[in-house]
């Protein structure tokens, strides 16, 4: 079988030889035009005059469009219809597109876009969480509230802790910036190549923008140079602009954001403030907890509601919290519209409870690991043991425990995984070594932390949990397959091809993977929520199963055998003891007029969710992981290094272990970047000052931990997923939280208090936190 094997990325050979084509590499006709947006220079207000004379006069400019010239819909939002492609006069953030330049080259378009003379009537911008609260500027009428039990238990708890901290946003920094290319066809049709995770939405928005039906638009996506959620909705503007310009000029039109434009125009991860009030026993057992989330959503709704929901749904992370209340405010500000980013709010929710656990442990004077174990959900076999009347261990056994949103946790494995990583990472001896080091050193301090991940898998918008596929077998026995998922580097195409090859028992080189194409598989969901291989793998398998059923029926007839006598393996079709070459069977089937093309469809079972009530089963299952990180900080400068990280991650029965480990490593480093060096800074006027890699620091080669051990936990998914695997895109991102907690631990060693530390914990913030802890004495 091809599944469960470490095969290289499907395009690895193209990548290493520079032959892999991204949008800007697609050969285009010589008359292709290039686009750029002219953007606002203020964050809030109205345009009072717009003089485009110099823009029109600029070298190479063919045309300039403002909102009045748009032929049809002026909207690029995913659902709320609140995001005009071009401003209609109101300005909502600094960087908002106002006009569109169509020119003969990328450079000419960009230069011209700077030449407009615009005057504004300024309004005071709402930039921060406090600004938004003061102005009651928000999405939805008021906060969403989820929870269970009764949090009044906090008041009578032996230990009560309250605090608040902030977590900054994060720029996706996909290496390939946003790009689209529209090529007009005969009879009003449009072909769009887009660097997008959501081809169907591009098709939908383009159709609206150029006033045609969806069947007049075909969107093709071969690959993206990284997505991370940043290409779920943020590509709409470029694709619509290209299609509008292409329809108008009857020429191919291409648009790619320069890096600075990309960072200034597009949305990022939501920044959060989280306040918590927790009551616990003297041993650290949490009795009740109350969270308030403040999410800065930016100017348009985009995906903010489900993002903020998911943050709430991860406020428990790995802990059984019987009395909990989570209140979530979705604040509207005059900044870029915050959007999907790997984890989709989950990381923000999770870091809230993880900080609480460390804070509690510090207060009650116990190792944070003990306090975590005390509060964990119970492992799934614990309740199966109980059900079969087996011995009951020290923990209370009362069947599956329930999350704050009413879902039973049936597949918990973190007790076992934690025991394993404690062992592998030599947690206990290193905990002692760190204490010993800190007792002997006053300038450099070390910190160690363990943090678990329990991440819910499925789109919380239940109807999105569907996928389609199309599989052809040609008469020579070669297979071509297509599905709705997009390839952004995660290795989805290879994993799904492995599924197809396994179904037919053939080698991978018989299976051709093709670009995602809305003309082949319609009505697809975004490749998001880590769902890519879960959904599309199942859809491809369904198509393959249909084809196999047809082939079997044909063989049963021809060889007078039973269905159960037939097996597809080793490039052959076996009927009892006799083997026929796969291609021969296909040839015969073709000659006997058997259809060799099939679609496949899959919808995830069991999920049902009421987001207003906050009750139901939003997820099919959970993916788990646990990490241990050690850092050293310099208390004189605030600088630090990650010395070692150990990660154990649950990818179910992995479809492709090498690709999955790659996801885990990359996600961890990205997660650590979010919480350490990646600082977004807006000035008082709302201008994003960190809009290039010169000022916005994603982790680089030298930032990777000195010792970095990543392993997969062998754990068949209990649910009936594709070959028992689990989704792996987002969950490991949250292993980065162990780095933030380790920094807090190191800072705590400088005094007696648990440090206040906002994220990202830049050296400046670490230094400030050290000094604050030191001021309070030992």
């Amino acid at each position, binding site marked *: 079988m091809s599944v469960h094997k470490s095969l290289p990325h499907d395009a690895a050979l193209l990548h290493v030889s520079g032959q892999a084509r991204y949008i800007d590499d697609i050969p285009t006709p010589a008359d292709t035009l290039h686009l750029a947006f002219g953007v606002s220079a203020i964050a809030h207000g109205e345009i009072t005059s717009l003089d485009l004379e110099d823009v029109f006069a600029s070298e190479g400019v063919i045309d300039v469009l403002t909102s009045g010239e748009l032929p049809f819909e002026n909207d690029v939002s995913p659902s709320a219809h609140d995001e005009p492609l071009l401003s209609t006069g109101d300005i909502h953030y600094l960087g908002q597109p106002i006009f569109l330049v169509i020119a003969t080259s990328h450079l000419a378009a960009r230069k011209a876009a700077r030449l407009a003379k615009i005057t504004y009537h300024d309004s005071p911008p709402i930039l921060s969480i406090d600004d938004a609260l003061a102005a009651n500027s928000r999405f939805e009428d008021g906060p969403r509230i989820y929870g269970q039990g009764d949090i009044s238990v906090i008041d009578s708890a032996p230990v009560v802790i309250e605090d608040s901290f902030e977590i900054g946003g994060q720029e996706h920094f996909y290496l390939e910036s946003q790009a689209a290319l529209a090529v007009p066809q005969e009879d009003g049709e449009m072909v769009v190549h887009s660097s997008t995770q959501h081809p169907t939405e591009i098709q939908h928005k383009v159709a609206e923008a150029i006033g045609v039906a969806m069947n007049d638009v075909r969107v093709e996506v071969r690959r993206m140079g990284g997505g991370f959620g940043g290409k779920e909705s943020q590509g709409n503007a470029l694709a619509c602009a290209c299609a509008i310009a292409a329809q108008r000029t009857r020429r191919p039109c291409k648009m790619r954001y320069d890096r600075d434009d990309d960072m200034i125009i597009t949305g990022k991860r939501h920044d959060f403030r989280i306040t918590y009030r927790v009551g616990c026993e003297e041993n650290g057992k949490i009795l009740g907890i109350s969270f308030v989330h403040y999410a800065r959503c930016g100017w348009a709704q985009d995906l903010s509601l489900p993002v903020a929901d998911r943050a709430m749904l991860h406020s428990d992370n790995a802990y059984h919290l019987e009395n909990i209340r989570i209140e979530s405010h979705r604040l509207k500000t005059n900044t870029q519209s915050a959007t999907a980013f790997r984890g989709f709010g989950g990381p923000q929710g999770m870091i809230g409870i993880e900080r609480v656990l460390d804070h509690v442990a510090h207060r009650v004077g116990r190792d944070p690991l003990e306090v975590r174990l005390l509060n964990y959900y119970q492992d799934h076999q614990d309740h199966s043991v109980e059900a079969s009347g087996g011995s009951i261990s020290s923990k209370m056994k009362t069947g599956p425990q329930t999350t704050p949103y009413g879902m039973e946790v049936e597949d918990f494995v973190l007790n076992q995984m934690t025991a394993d990583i404690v062992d592998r990472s030599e947690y206990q001896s290193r905990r002692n070594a760190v204490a010993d080091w800190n007792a002997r050193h006053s300038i450099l301090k070390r910190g160690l932390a363990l943090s678990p991940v329990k991440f819910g898998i499925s789109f919380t918008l239940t109807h999105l949990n569907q996928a389609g596929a199309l599989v052809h077998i040609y008469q020579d026995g070669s297979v071509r397959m297509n599905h709705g998922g997009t390839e952004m580097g995660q290795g989805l195409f290879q994993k799904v091809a492995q599924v197809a090859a396994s179904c037919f028992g053939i080698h991978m080189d018989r299976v051709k993977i093709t670009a995602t194409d809305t003309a082949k598989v319609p009505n697809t969901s975004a490749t998001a929520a880590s769902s890519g291989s879960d959904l599309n793998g199942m859809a491809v398998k369904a198509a393959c199963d249909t084809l196999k059923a047809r082939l079997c029926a044909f063989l049963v007839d021809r060889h007078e055998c039973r269905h159960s006598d037939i097996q597809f393996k080793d490039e052959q079709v076996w009927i009892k003891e006799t083997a026929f070459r796969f291609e021969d069977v296909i040839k015969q089937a073709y000659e006997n007029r058997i259809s060799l093309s099939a679609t496949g469809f899959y919808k995830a079972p069991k999920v049902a969710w009421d987001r207003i009530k906050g009750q139901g089963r939003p997820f099919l299952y959970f993916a788990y992981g646990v990490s241990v990180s050690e850092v050293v900080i310099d208390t004189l400068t605030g600088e630090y290094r990650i010395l070692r990280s150990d990660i154990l991650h649950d990818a179910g029965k992995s479809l492709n272990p090498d690709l999955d*480990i790659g996801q885990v490593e990359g996600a961890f480093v990205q997660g650590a970047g979010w919480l350490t060096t990646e600082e977004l800074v807006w000035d008082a006027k709302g201008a994003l000052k960190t809009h290039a890699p010169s000022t916005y620091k994603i982790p680089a080669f030298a930032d990777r931990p000195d010792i970095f051990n990543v392993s997969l936990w062998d754990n068949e998914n209990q649910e009936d997923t594709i070959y028992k695997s689990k989704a792996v895109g987002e969950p490991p991102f949250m292993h980065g939280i162990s780095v933030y907690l380790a920094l807090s631990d190191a800072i705590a060693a400088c005094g007696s208090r648990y440090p206040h530390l906002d994220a990202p914990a830049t050296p400046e913030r670490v230094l400030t936190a050290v000094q604050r802890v030191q001021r309070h004495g030992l």
Partner: protein
Amino acid sequence: MSKIHVTTTVNNEVVEFLADPRETLLDCLRDRLDLTGTKEGCGTGDCGACSVTVDGTLVCSCLVLGVEAEGAKIETIENMAQDGALHPLQRKFIEHAALQCGFCTPGILVAAKALLDKTPDPTETEVRYWLAGNLCRCTGYDKIIRAVMDAAAEMRGAA
């Protein structure tokens, strides 16, 4: 603006093109010579996706003007495999799964080759610091470092 005629050697072939004097070498390679293996990640010399060598020196081609290529010898990712055989670095990148979206890969390979051409036996720290100017958002770097170290070992063995 009037264009300037440039004659240069790219991947051992003499080529000529007309360049706007403001155009970068990166744009000339991509748009005039159709060598799109060299990528733009930032345009400001901070990501290394546009790495090429000019007369053997590793440069960010987004920081070099096309007209500066006059008379120079330029090598890009497209020239790394020789006579249909992958360079050991290329093979090791595939073997170690040292790429995901692949957008950073050409630049990192060109930069790593420039290191190994000069320093066949680098320490891991040397590799890390040499490649510090190449950003990758997908992999977390670990597999890339292993691939480079392994390729270096193989090339020393073969030499």
